[in-house]
């Protein structure tokens, strides 16, 4: 029975403290009943190798314990589509353009490379890493807090079909959409400058000027 005890101990580790003993007592009783029934059929004690399939069928300790816990998610299925749009916008409108500019400057600006020799070139990307980490972390935390609050259920239930946006016509570029994209781009640039990317831009301009002079 040592194998069963080890299994139960592993399950117990993942269980909520106040229910640990109760759940383990019940699961233990079930497993021991199964083993005793098989022992009665075979007329002998089961070897560990014969107990193993019973435990494997029961499931891995973490999986078994997980079934006793309430279902939780950091960001639930109702909010996840909005979260996904925000994260993708952050990457494509903010982090990706910044990275592209940095790559351009690192390749085409000798001055920038001279200012950041060797490993310092990659260290100059620190503000990008920081901005990326903090912005993704902030968004995730904000959505997780929204998920926890009751605001979600109220907001999701109070919607009006007439307030939905008009059906999108692919042949027509809407003025509102263009203004929105422009505003978003300007806002991204403003945030980008605010977070210290101005140095990279300065070097990019410098690089372009140098190239123009050479020609």
């Amino acid at each position, binding site marked *: 029975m040592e194998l069963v005890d080890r299994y139960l101990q592993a399950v117990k580790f993942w269980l909520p403290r106040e229910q640990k003993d109760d759940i383990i007592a019940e699961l233990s*009783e079930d497993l*021991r009943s199964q083993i005793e029934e098989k022992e009665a059929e075979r007329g002998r004690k089961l070897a560990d190798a014969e107990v193993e399939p019973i435990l494997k069928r029961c499931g891995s300790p973490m999986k078994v314990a997980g079934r006793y816990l309430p279902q939780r998610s950091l960001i639930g299925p109702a909010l996840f589509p909005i979260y996904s749009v925000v994260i993708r916008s952050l990457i494509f409108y903010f982090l990706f353009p910044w990275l592209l500019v940095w790559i351009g400057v690192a390749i085409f600006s000798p001055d920038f490379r001279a200012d950041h020799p060797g490993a310092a070139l990659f260290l100059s990307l620190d503000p990008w890493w920081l901005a990326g980490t903090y912005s993704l972390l902030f968004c995730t935390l904000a959505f997780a807090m929204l998920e926890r609050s009751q605001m979600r259920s109220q907001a999701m239930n109070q919607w009006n079909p007439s307030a939905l946006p008009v059906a999108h016509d692919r042949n027509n570029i809407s003025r509102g959409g263009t203004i929105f994209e422009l505003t978003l781009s300007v806002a991204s640039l403003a945030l980008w400058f605010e977070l210290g990317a101005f140095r990279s831009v300065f070097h990019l301009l410098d690089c372009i000027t140098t190239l123009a002079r050479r020609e």
Partner: protein
Amino acid sequence: MSHGIENPDQRFENLRQELRRGSLPLAVLAALRTEHYGYTLRKTLADHGMAIDEGTLYPLLRRLEAQGLLVSQWREEDKRNKRFYRLSPNGKLILKQLLVEWKSIHTSLEDIF
């Protein structure tokens, strides 16, 4: 995308389990019109073609008890402590309503088939 590489047998098995999962609370409530402890309840369900593993049954029993549909009691039997479950008065009422709903679903499906 795991759905893309599922073979037809796996797909059938997943859908079969999903179908049975929805019926398990009803089967458990119906079986607990008679008092059982976990292991005998599992055997009773398996004998009626509704096999359920221990990792699914015990959390389900706890949920149903927390909803006030079951009552449980630890008792000694054959020199071992066992937790016995049975339907609560509220559980009996809900079971009656669920059985009506189940029959209605069955009739509707028969009509569609």
